[in-house]
Structure formats: structure tokens, C-alpha cells
């Protein structure tokens, strides 16, 4: 009766019924998985959440809950939201760099089309144009930075 309990029922010190909501997703060979989830969400919240989902989606839900719980254990202040902020920052940096690079391409192509303007010291207007292209790229505003607009 006590053998073959899932890690959740072992942790909760209870009998593991045949229709245990936890057992498909919290096998006995990985006790740490349920410990993290229990610490952050609690057993009844996780059970409720899983019960409200169709069976074929529960495994993914259990995985994502574990991921978030682990993030929260490692970073008790920000949890996985800290990772989201960092990714948003990376996204912003990549967008800036891409815009700058595309502006450089535009300038180089323009140079190639008008070879007489290549001596930039002699052409202050062209020099200003180049600087403006690069400044515009650096000043681009990304409306979704720091917000939850993607949610």
C-alpha cells in the first residue's frame, strides 16, 4: 500500500491513490521537483490548477510550474520575472544594434551610388547625414521595454 507512491504523496505522507493528480508528473525518482513546487505554490493550489486543465496539457503545466518555482527559489525577489526583464533588455539591445547596422548599410549603399561623396572630410553635408543616420538608430524608442505589453 505504501510502496509505489509518487514523490508528492511521499512528501505529503499520504496514500497515493490510483487516480492521484500528481503521480504522472511527480515520479518518485525526482523528489526535488515536488519540493520546489510545494514550497512556492502549495500542494492544493497545484492540484487545483492541474485539475482545471485537460489531461493532455497537464505535463507541460507541471513543467512550467516547476521552472517558475525553481526561478523563485533561486531569486526570491524577482523569480522568473527577473529573467523576463533581462530578455527584454537583450531584445532592446539587439533591436538597437540591428537598426544601427541597417543605417550603416544605407549609408554605405548611398556612398556606393555617389562615389564622389566618399571624401567625407570635404563634404560636411554628407558627414552630417551619416551622423544623423547613426544617431537616429541609437535613439530608437522601443515601446515594450519594461512593460508587460507582450502578455
Amino acid at each position: 500500500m505504501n510502496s509505489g507512491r509518487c514523490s508528492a504523496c511521499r512528501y505529503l505522507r499520504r496514500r497515493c491513490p490510483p487516480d492521484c493528480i500528481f503521480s504522472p508528473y511527480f515520479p518518485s525518482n525526482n523528489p526535488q521537483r515536488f519540493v520546489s513546487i510545494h514550497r512556492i505554490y502549495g500542494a492544493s493550489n497545484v492540484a487545483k490548477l492541474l485539475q482545471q486543465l485537460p489531461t493532455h496539457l497537464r505535463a507541460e503545466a507541471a513543467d512550467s510550474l516547476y521552472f517558475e518555482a525553481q526561478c523563485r527559489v533561486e531569486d526570491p525577489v524577482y523569480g522568473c520575472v527577473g529573467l523576463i526583464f533581462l530578455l527584454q533588455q537583450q531584445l532592446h539591445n539587439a533591436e538597437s544594434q540591428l537598426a544601427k547596422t541597417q543605417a550603416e548599410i544605407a549609408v554605405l549603399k548611398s556612398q556606393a551610388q555617389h562615389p564622389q561623396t566618399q571624401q567625407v572630410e570635404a563634404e560636411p553635408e554628407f558627414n552630417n547625414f551619416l551622423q544623423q543616420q547613426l544617431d537616429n538608430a541609437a535613439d530608437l524608442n522601443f515601446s515594450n521595454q519594461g512593460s508587460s505589453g507582450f502578455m
Partner: protein
Amino acid sequence: MGGNSPCASCKLLRRRCAKDCIFAPYFPSDDPHKFAIVHKVFGASNVSKMLQELPVQQRADAVSSLVYEANARVRDPVYGCVGAISYLQNQVSQLQMQLAVAQAEILCIQVQQEPMAPTPQLDQDDKSFLLHNNVGLPHHHQYLNLANSSSNVIQDSLKRESIFGDMVS
């Protein structure tokens, strides 16, 4: 004793709001939804424990991130915040790909402008090939291999090219 109105947490939990209530500074009575959603996902006692384990100056940020996560989980009960992480990871990968293509294009243009060098060019097909075939972007949500319970999830996520490995279920 009961002079001030109870905070949103104590109202929902139907209990007396003590002067040193741990929730009161972060869950004012004019925003009942905020505590309701956090309670629904994490549970009041878990939130209380988490806050108690943090220094006071970090609790406001912790509450904000818990509210954010709870909202994400309610909107997407299967993936929660991890859906957003997956989306952002894909966006960053795609932009990095585009950046690599753009940088290659600059090199080509610069080489073109050399009078003696041959003239390689990146045409539309080359760009398309680089964009769509270079990196295997995940087509669906995949998760970090969490079988090793001692792994540092956040550090590994930032170091890896993609934070999602094969799902272990």
C-alpha cells in the same frame, strides 16, 4: 485596534488587520484584485512566508513580481510566465540572426567597394537561406532540462543559446 480599514488581504481572508500585518503595505484595500490573484495562484500563507523571508526593502519588488507571475498564470494556465520567456527568447534569436545577416552584408559592400577585389553579393535568396536555415528555432515551447535539481536555472538560462532543452517528463 480596528481603527483603520483592513487591507485587501485581511478583507479577503476575513480576519482582523493587525498593525504589523505583513500584507498591508503592499495590498491596499482599494485594489482587491491584486491580492485575490496572488492568493489564487500562490496562496496567502505561501506569500506571507515568502515575504517574511525577505528584508523589508525587497518586499515591494517581490510582491510586484508575484502579481506579475500570478497574472501570467491566470491568463495562460498551462505556461504562465514561461510562455513569455519562450516568446522573448525566440525574438532575441531572430534578431541576432538578422543582425548577423546585416553584418555580413556590410562586409560584402565594403569588399565591393575595394577596386581590385571580386564582387560577392548577398542576394535575397542568400539572406532568406541564412534566416531560415541557420539556427533551429523551437517551433513550440520547450523547457530547460530540470532533471538535475541542483542546476541553477536562471544562470543556465542566460548562458545557453536557447534556454529550453529537451523536455523531461
